[in-house]
């Protein structure tokens, strides 16, 4: 795995630019216009190639064991905040976010394609995952009240009361695959994922325990 990263680092001159800026994307007037001018139809056609992994309706998959090999979870894209998705695709393109397959796939996605895909997937309804009868008392308090001692703001203040995401680029969480959700928070926690500006998400994830992360993952997966 480590060799792969070094290989990618050498391949891609852009990685070394502003090392700790988190991401190259800035919500200036023209970037906003680029995303807004994305067209859903072009996005629909482009999205055909995403279906094999992200599912027919962009609902993603949890960790699966298929003929002896564990396949990692794949995020749900349906109903995602278009600005957030555009930023992720461009972060992959610029190398601010790394993934063994997405990094190379993103190389083939131009800015217009990214905008079209983002607008298309945001037009889909948020995925509805199977309900879960766990009582999420601890998760609910973290989501609605946060934790004053650790200066943790409640999750809903940024991600929206129903986990639907918020203007301008805060991602939706409702219906997200719990394994992917957990992996993401763990990556933020370890710093492996670092395309959040001023480490906003990393600083929060570092103060969460593994149990809390698992709780939140299941809570948001069943949120509709």
């Amino acid at each position, binding site marked *: 795995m480590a060799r792969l990263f070094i290989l990618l680092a050498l391949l891609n001159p852009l990685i070394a630019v502003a090392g700790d800026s988190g991401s190259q994307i800035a*919500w200036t007037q023209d970037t*906003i*216009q680029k995303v807004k001018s994305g067209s859903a139809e072009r996005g629909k056609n482009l999205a055909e190639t995403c279906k094999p992994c992200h599912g027919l309706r962009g609902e993603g998959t949890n960790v699966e064991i298929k003929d002896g090999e564990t396949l990692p979870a794949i995020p749900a894209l349906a109903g995602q905040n278009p600005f957030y998705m555009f930023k992720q695709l461009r972060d992959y393109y610029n190398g601010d976010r790394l993934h063994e397959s997405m990094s190379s796939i993103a190389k083939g996605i131009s800015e217009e394609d990214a905008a079209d895909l983002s607008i298309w997937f945001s037009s889909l309804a948020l995925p509805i995952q199977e309900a879960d009868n766990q009582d999420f008392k601890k998760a609910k308090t973290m989501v609605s009240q*946060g934790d004053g001692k650790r200066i943790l703001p*409640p999750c809903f203040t940024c991600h*929206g009361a129903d986990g639907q995401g918020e*203007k*301008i680029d805060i991602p939706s969480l409702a219906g997200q695959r719990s394994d992917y959700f957990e992996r993401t928070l763990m990556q933020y926690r370890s710093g492996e994922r670092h395309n959040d500006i001023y480490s906003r998400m990393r600083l929060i994830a570092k103060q969460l325990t593994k149990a809390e992360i698992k709780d939140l993952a299941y809570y948001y997966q069943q949120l509709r």
Partner: protein
Amino acid sequence: MVSPADRKLTIFHLWVAFAAFIVASFLGEYQVLERSGFIPALDSPTVYFASVSTHGVLMGFVLTTFFIMGFGYYTATTSLNTPIWNPKLAWYGFWISLTGTVMAAVPLLTGKASVLYTFYLPMQAHVAFYIGATLLVVGSWLWCAVMLVMFRQWKQANPKQPVPLAMFATTANALLWVWTSVGVALEVLFQAIPLALGWIDTVDAGLARTLFAWTLHPIVYFWLIPAYIAFYVFVPKQAGGYLFSDEIARAAFIVLAVFGLPIGFHHLYMDPAQTSSWKLLHGVGTLIVSLPTLVTGFTVIASLEIAGRLRGGTGLFGWIGSLPWTNPMVLSVILSLLMLILGGFGGVINASYAMNAMIHNTAWVPGHFHLIFAGTTVIMYFAIAYYLWPMLVKKPLFSNSLALVQLWTWFIGMGILTTPWHVLGLLGQPRRLSSMVYNTLLTLAWKPYELAMIFGGLIMLCSACLFIYNLVKTQLSPAPESFIQEIEYAEPIRPVAALPEYLNDFTLWNRVIAVLMAISFGIPILQFFFMDTYGSPGWGY
């Protein structure tokens, strides 16, 4: 004699005003209860900030605008002895404003517009909220038109005659409001609505705050002037005396209107978008504009002194005891002036340039404006309502003693609510917190004050209900066979002999306002178009 149609117009406005008032009073008590953490189950930022936005809009825009319009119509028709000019236009104004209020109330109550009553661009609310607020203001402009036309018509019909003081002040208020509302209208029409509809992608937050600061001070004088009108034209008569000086009253209203406009930057002292010299110019202007309030205090209390002595009061302060304390108008002016002292002092501290850093955006600020608006101004709204209701519905007031109890409880509740609030401000508690989650010793020091505020709010909530109860019972009680009560305006001790034209007309003062506004707002607004500023995209909340 006021025609039934004009009475209907007035009372419709007043009922919308007081309906908004009672709803917002309940929200106010909920907020104090929620914020103190006394009942942890209540804790919810979503509901709290939707409530604060609604409480602010209902009290600051709906109660005030509708009360001022209703009271303005009744003052105009009774002081000029002419029916209201163009009642159709007046009713259009009413329905436009009411539609705007409902249109704004829907997103507010569903949590789609929790951006508070000061908008806070680049945060974005539902577009219906901004359009509703705009319609409310447009409706009030029609009221201004009716007032100005009636003023102009009366002057043509009575050349060289001094306009009755009540009408003169109401027209000054209408003019002040036209000048005042330009700032917020520019911000909403060119920034908030286009951003909400997606016509533009970014707005300059510095420009938005500067335009809103244009409106932010004179709007509080727009609310305060009806209280001062009652001070000058009702109180002396009700106290059994005469108005100490008519000319000084007119001069005070003029200075309030003219100098209330160009001093908005005391709301922007801590802002990085304006230089310190503009702030100093506005700061000096703000301190100067405390003059008309202090002169009003002198003139009104002098009128009360004369009235007290005529009723047998002797010695330096004997007149205070012999005033008719059981007359709601007299009791409320005394309580109002007491609150004006502390409320006004809080305002002078806010206005003192760099000292504003001590209490900017802390709990001191809501403590100040609840004391001076919800106290000094709204208690006079009560007194005016108690005085006008019998004339509007042709029935005696349901219970005079209940009115006195209501006024006293409002005053006492206000004291218990705002004194801790000022102390919390000095202790550095920020404004607009839905709960105290800071993990520091400081928040423990705040606890007792927040709990005290619950009781202040509770007393005021009961007082508000008493007020509405009294008015409703007055309106619903059976009409006595003959009930005649006519409005009585105070006469000055010295009849107004040769009144200079500039104390009887506004053309000169319009020009002075235009010049002052050009000086104090011209460059600070134009600077945004000459330096390379960067817009910010719209954000949720």
